[in-house]
């Protein structure tokens, strides 16, 4: 292999290729576009185009799917951590968040989970506030599971309403039949 400069070598090479009848320089560009994405793959998925393009497409599919999934996972983690931090103060996640939103405390889950790790005293005071407010609101009775055999006024009223609706329907049906 004798050549004096890169330019001369390239020119010779091109001439040789043209002589062979291969005149598709764009093909290389197309392949390079894929190979740039697969440089870190293992085995033939990295260098063989037919395999690499399938791997690259799969990778891109997964990437776009997981961009959404990542947010879901992070949210689950934050909720888990906040729940764990609340467990230390004998409180629960749902009432805590509902009180915060009711009181216009605009801290999202991400910030709350940061606080509960790095500024635990701040978090403690937030929980104490939430507990106090929750008792004032009297929400606990409404949210707590109803023990069996107990009928509250609201449940009764609901039942009455349904009964009344049924009655109206029946009457309408009766009128239709009479007609």
């Amino acid at each position: 292999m004798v050549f004096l400069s890169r330019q001369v070598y390239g020119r010779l090479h091109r001439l040789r290729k043209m002589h062979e009848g291969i005149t598709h320089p764009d093909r290389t560009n197309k392949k390079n576009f894929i190979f740039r994405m697969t440089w870190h793959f293992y085995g033939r998925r990295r260098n063989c185009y037919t395999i690499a393009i399938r791997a690259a497409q799969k990778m891109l599919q997964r990437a776009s799917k997981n961009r959404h999934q990542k947010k879901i996972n992070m949210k689950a983690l934050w909720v888990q951590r906040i729940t764990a931090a609340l467990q230390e103060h004998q409180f629960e996640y749902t009432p805590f968040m509902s009180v915060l939103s009711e009181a216009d405390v605009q801290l999202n889950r991400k910030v709350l989970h940061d606080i509960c790790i790095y500024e635990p005293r701040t978090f403690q005071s937030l929980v104490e506030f939430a507990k106090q407010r929750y008792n004032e609101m009297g929400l606990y009775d409404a949210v707590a599971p109803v023990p069996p055999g107990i009928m509250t006024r609201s449940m009764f009223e609901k039942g009455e309403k349904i009964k009344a609706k049924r009655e109206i329907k029946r009457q309408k049906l009766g009128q239709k039949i009479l007609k």
Partner: protein
Amino acid sequence: MAHNRVVQWSTMSRIWWLYDAKYQCPFRSARIIAGYLQGQHKPIYHALSDVGDHVVVINSRHIAMREELWRTFTFSYHTGYAKGFSRTPAWRLHSMEPTMMIEKAVYSNMPGFLLRRKYMRRLHIYPDEEVPPEIIGNVCDQIQQIQKVPKRLDEYTAEEIQAFPKLFDWSEEYVIENISADKPKDTVKAAKK
């Protein structure tokens, strides 16, 4: 930064919990114990970073199961060869190895990835209250039980039994054996011997 080093040591440390399994449901207890082993009770929890604690379970021999589960709940296993299937009822497994029920319940309550074996190594189960001093010395807190421990009939004194209100009377024709309060104690002693 030496001080930050010890602060980090403290944050990431594993503390030791004790759980008394006496008269507790193994399946419901396992769910709680598995949470502690994985560190789900800590605000620094992450599924892939191993931040779980140690749990020492005592009195695993004295667990309780509801209804007919001792008889009907079975553990099955297949060797992979022909006729290799075996099925063991819970009572049989428990009589052979009194720590196995809790262990299996906790194992099945954890996500099936490679950290599970590591978590299980931090679970120390003892059939009775006797725990080696080097283990019990590590413990610094106790997990609350999940159900009330009932008071057995032989734990009541004769006076208490006498003072208990009589709810109804057997009819005179009704034949009952061993109704006296002293009898069950004797039978238990005999069984132990």
